[in-house]
Every structure is written in structure tokens, then in C-alpha cells.
């Protein structure tokens, strides 16, 4: 503890990075990166259609919602501690239902849709952040409660999948051309993340996640910072639900649970530390793409009636193996640091 506190001012000022620092920063990308390469090669061999223009377009709209939702919960994971947002699936589904069923005709254009989706996303996330920051109830508990509330409400509002998305959005799901709005929205989302992650607010979120006591004594205001982290997540959840609405072209109240599970899985494969402070959008994006590639590769194999069970088995196994691989890597990288810290303690 003493050793890491002493290092902090130096790190915040960003002097030159030693090799160890660079490795420590990039090692989280090793697992999702190598998984991506293996899966991509398998996908290219088993289903070369992926590499065609409409194959890529299908991949963009198929993986898009998961990619953006995983970026959303990355912001919360960084804010730590134990910042797992379990509510993401039901919240995304909730926005999906509101967009498809509740938005009146004059507001069914792209600008209004984005504004409404992002607005609902931010509102829900900031409400959760208020509970976390002001009541000081842990993130897992609050997001679990909101998961139950919103998931229940979704089915009450809309018991069966139904409704119809406006045609401009429903066309996204066709995925026939790479250079489509889907690609531009994805690129704009990445650019937005790049911008946000360079702000002072974001640096404060990282510091708070790494050690809230240090952040507190450094003058970071913890409550606004946590609200900020969740507001960022809300923006991305909103965009993710628009893309999801485009993918399915309707409203589906049943998708919440599985979407939460896939998003959290993608986050962890992406190398995010659930202890807080350390998570990278690039890792999360790779993790989400990995998840999509797993299902793509599995669809190229004919399992007959058992296909969904195989998807379950493989997803679970990959999750555990990715954790184990990540653990071994960080054991190796952390060995030297831990010894030094242990010596400092004695």
C-alpha cells in the first residue's frame, strides 16, 4: 500500500514508461487479442462468407450492440470497486421497447431517436449512480436490484416480442453493404470514447476506481465523478440499444438476461479488472467481437438440435479459460512487483 501510494504522483504526471509498465498495460490485451486471432482464422476457414462485403456488414450489425454495450459497462468497471453493471441487458431492452412502442410518429427520425435513447440511458444510469454514491450501496447490489425491476417491468409492458422499428432503422438489420450507417455509427462511437477518455473527468474516474481514498485526499469530488462515470455508460447504452433495435427490427422483452451475461463475459474476456481502475475499451471491444465470433464459428458447425447447448457450453468454457489465462499472465507480470511490495511491508 505504501509503495503504490508513493508511485502515484509519478504515474499521474506520465513520465517515460519503463518496459514493465508497457507490458503491464498491454498484457490485458493478450488474452482477447490472441482469442480474436484464433477465432478469426477459424471463422475465415469455416465460413469464408464473413470476408465478403455483406458478410462484414452482417458482422458489424451483429456484433455492434454487444460491442457498444460492453464499452458502456467498461466505464463502470473502471469506476470500481466491484463495478459490474448487471443491469445493462434489461436497461438496453427497456430502451428498445420504449423506442419501438412508445415514441410518437413525429419523433421517429434518427436525431430524435438518438436523443431519446441516450436520454433514457443517462437518466437510468445517473439514478443508479446516485444510489451507489450517495447511499453508498455497492454497484453490484444496485445494478442487481435495477436488473430485477427493469426486467420485470419490460415483461409487464410488453409480454411478447412485437412492434415494428421505423424503416430507416429496421434497414440496418439487413446488413447488405459495409459502408452503411451502421459502420458510421460504430466509428462515431469509437471516436466519442476516444474523446471522453482524454478528459479530466475520465482521469478522475480512473483514479477513483484504482483507489478512492487516494482520489479523495487528492481533491477529487467522488459523487460527481461517479455520476460522470455512469452518465458516460448511459450514453453508450443508449447507442447500443438503437443498434440492437436496428438488428432485430422490433422490440423483444426477453433478451435482458442473456444480454447481461454476454456483456459481462465480454468485459471480463477483454481483461477488465473488476477491482476497479483498470479496463480498456480496446480490450472490451475485442472481448465483445470474440463473443460474436464464437457464435459465428459455432453456427458453421452442424450440431443439429443441440446447437444452443453447444453455444452455452463453449461460451462458459471460453469465459473460464480466458480468466485462467489472464490470471496466469498477471501472475507472471505481477510476481516481481508483489515481491517488492512484500519487502516494503516487512
Amino acid at each position, binding site marked *: 500500500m505504501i509503495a503504490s501510494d508513493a508511485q502515484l504522483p509519478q504515474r499521474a504526471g506520465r513520465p517515460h514508461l519503463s518496459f514493465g509498465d508497457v507490458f503491464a498495460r498491454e498484457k490485458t490485451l493478450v488474452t482477447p487479442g490472441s482469442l480474436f486471432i484464433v477465432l478469426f482464422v477459424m471463422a475465415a476457414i469455416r465460413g469464408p462468407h464473413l470476408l465478403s462485403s455483406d458478410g462484414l456488414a452482417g458482422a458489424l450489425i451483429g456484433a455492434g450492440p454487444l460491442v457498444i454495450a460492453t464499452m458502456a459497462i467498461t466505464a463502470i468497471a473502471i469506476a470500481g470497486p466491484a463495478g459490474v453493471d448487471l443491469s445493462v441487458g434489461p436497461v438496453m431492452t427497456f430502451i428498445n421497447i420504449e423506442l419501438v412502442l412508445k415514441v410518437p410518429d413525429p419523433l421517429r427520425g434518427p436525431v430524435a431517436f438518438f436523443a431519446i435513447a441516450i436520454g433514457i440511458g443517462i437518466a437510468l444510469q445517473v439514478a443508479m449512480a446516485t444510489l451507489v454514491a450517495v447511499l*453508498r450501496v*455497492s454497484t453490484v*447490489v444496485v445494478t442487481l*436490484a435495477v436488473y430485477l*425491476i427493469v426486467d420485470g417491468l419490460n415483461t409487464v409492458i410488453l409480454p411478447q416480442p412485437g412492434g415494428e422499428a421505423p424503416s430507416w432503422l429496421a434497414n440496418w438489420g439487413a446488413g447488405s453493404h459495409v459502408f452503411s450507417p451502421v459502420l458510421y455509427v460504430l466509428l462515431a462511437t469509437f471516436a466519442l470514447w476516444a474523446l471522453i477518455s482524454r478528459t479530466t473527468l475520465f482521469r478522475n474516474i480512473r483514479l477513483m476506481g484504482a483507489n478512492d481514498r487516494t482520489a479523495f485526499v487528492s481533491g477529487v469530488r*467522488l459523487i460527481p465523478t461517479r455520476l460522470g462515470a455512469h452518465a458516460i455508460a448511459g450514453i453508450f447504452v443508449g447507442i447500443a440499444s438503437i443498434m440492437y433495435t436496428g438488428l432485430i427490427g422490433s422490440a423483444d422483452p426477453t433478451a435482458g438476461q442473456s444480454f447481461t451475461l454476454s456483456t459481462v463475459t465480454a468485459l471480463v474476456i477483454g481483461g477488465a479488472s473488476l477491482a476497479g481502475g483498470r479496463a480498456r475499451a480496446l480490450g472490451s471491444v475485442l472481448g465483445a467481437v470474440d463473443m460474436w465470433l464464437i457464435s459465428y464459428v459455432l453456427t458453421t458447425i452442424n450440431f443439429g438440435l*443441440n446447437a444452443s447447448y453447444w453455444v452455452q*457450453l*463453449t461460451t*462458459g468454457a471460453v469465459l473460464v479459460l480466458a480468466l485462467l489465462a489472464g490470471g496466469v499472465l498477471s501472475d507472471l507480470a505481477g510476481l516481481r512487483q508483489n515481491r517488492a511490495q512484500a519487502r516494503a511491508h516487512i
Partner: protein
Amino acid sequence: MSSVNVSLTDARAVVTQYRNLAMSGVVLVGLVIFGATTIDGFWSLLNLRQNLVFASFLGIASIGQTLCALIGGLDLSIAFVIGAANIGIVKFFNLGWSSALAVLVILCAAAGVGALSGLISSRQRGQDLVVTLGVGTALLGLVQIAVSSGGNSGVSGGMIMGTVPKWITNLTSLDSAIGFAPSVVLWAVLAAITMLLLRRTWVGRGLYALGGNQTAAERVLIPRRWMWILVYAVSAVTAASAGILLLGFTGGGYAAVGNPYLFTTIAAVLIGGTSLVGGQGGYGLTMMGVLILTVLQTILSGYSLSYSAQEAIYGALIIPMVALYARSPHPRTLV
């Protein structure tokens, strides 16, 4: 740490525990009065006995979740283990195994899977959530593949048919000699054992120590890794037991039978007043949580609310309950 400090923390923990017990008691009594005055037949013996059967499923599945919470972990695999045990054992019956052997094999396999979760989770703090999620998902996928392979007794839509032995069906039957279903008695016995183990044995006290302060517990030679393995193994065994009891209740295997238990076991732990941070609480509190959820469920069904609406209300209950007694300290008090 001076001894004064320690005894102060001690006293505070004791006060917290009784305060939580008292608060959940008040909520339970309030709900029972509300139900008894507004719903016809709520107070009948039949309804009471039926409710206790439901409570016994959740109660037994929550034993493991409580132990996990006490060491600062969570078990998200409970729902999947329940489902896997539920359909796995039907497959064994269909293969002509004796029922006792089938139960034994299922419980041992569950212990093995749980131990694996515990072993992996113990490597790094904070990963238990995803480890149990991954192990659970993989397990249920594997068991469904295994159950549907070979012969025509396959699963369709996660369902599997078979003949369930009479004694397993009787476990949840209301017309037994003692007046209560045997599953309720089983729950009471398991609860007594759990509470005794937690209070009176070295292992039980070790769990509290580990949840309270991991570093200190390791310094007094409490084997952290073995504790995690033990706790998650127990959790899987209690989940599998609940899965077998549910089979007796419904009469047919169904892979998704455990789904409501994914989060209600955590809700029971939280509403009872055991903190997820670890080291505080106990199974007595969880039993209160289980009873509260069961009574609440009866009331909400009495008002003919759907399962989804009930789910939403459970969720809305968790935040105020936790805010009352499990808030984390402000960083300013820790600097």
C-alpha cells in the same frame, strides 16, 4: 489495532446482527399481518404448509449463497446447477439406475463442480461472479448435451420426461405423517447444521474471519484456498439438492427450472441482512429473507400479479433493505 478497538468492532458487529434480525422480523410480521387482513385464505393451514414447501426450495438453495456471501463472494452458478441436477437425475432414472445411487452421483458431481469454481475464484478477488457464471453456463450446456445424446429419451425445449421415484415425489408432498412436507423438515435440519457449524466450529469461525479481513485471516493460518473450495462445493451441493427436490415437486426435468433462483438467492441473503462484503451476517438472517420473499410472493400472487411484476418488486425491495444496514463507509472515515 488496540484491544479496545477490536472489542468495539466486535460489539458493533453483534449489535448489527441483532438489529438486522429485528428489522427483518418487523418486515416479516408486517407482511404476514398485511396478507392475513387483505387476502382470503392467507391464514389457512394449507396455505401455510404450501408456502413452507416453496420456502424450503429457496432456503436450501440459499445455504450456499449465504456461505459465499460470508467470505465475500457470490455464486451465480446456483441456477444452472439446479437445472443441471434436475435434468441429469432424470436421465439416470431413465438409464435404470437405482435412485439412491443417482442422488449420490449427482451430489458428488455437484461438489466437484463447485470445488472447481471455488478453486478458480480463490485465485483472484472479485472474479467469483464471472467464474461461477462461466462454470454454471458450461455445466448446464454440457449436461443438456449429455442428456439429449443416446436414445430417444432426449431433451426437447429443455424438458425431459421420465418416471420419478415415489420417495422423491413424497419429499414435497403435503400429506405426510408429520403434517409438514419432508422437504421442510430437511430444510430445518440443514439450517440447524449450518448454523451450528457457523457458530461452534473452527471452520465456521474461519469463514467469518476470512470475510472480515482476508490478510489477517491468512496470517492466523486459515487456509483461504481450501475455504473457498469448501464453500463453493457446499453451495453446489445445496443447489443440486434443491434441484432434486424441485424434480419431486414438478414431476419432470426442466433445464430452466432454476432460473428464478439466479437472483432470488442473492435477494434472500441481502434482504435478510447478510452483507455481500463478507464477515457479517449468518444463515438465521437468510432464513428470514427466505420467509419474507415467500410471504411476499404469496401476497403478490394473491393480488394476481405476474411473475415479472413480482420480480420488479423484489428488486425494488433490495435497495432500501441494503441501504438500511449494509452501507459502505465514506472514504473520509478511512483515510
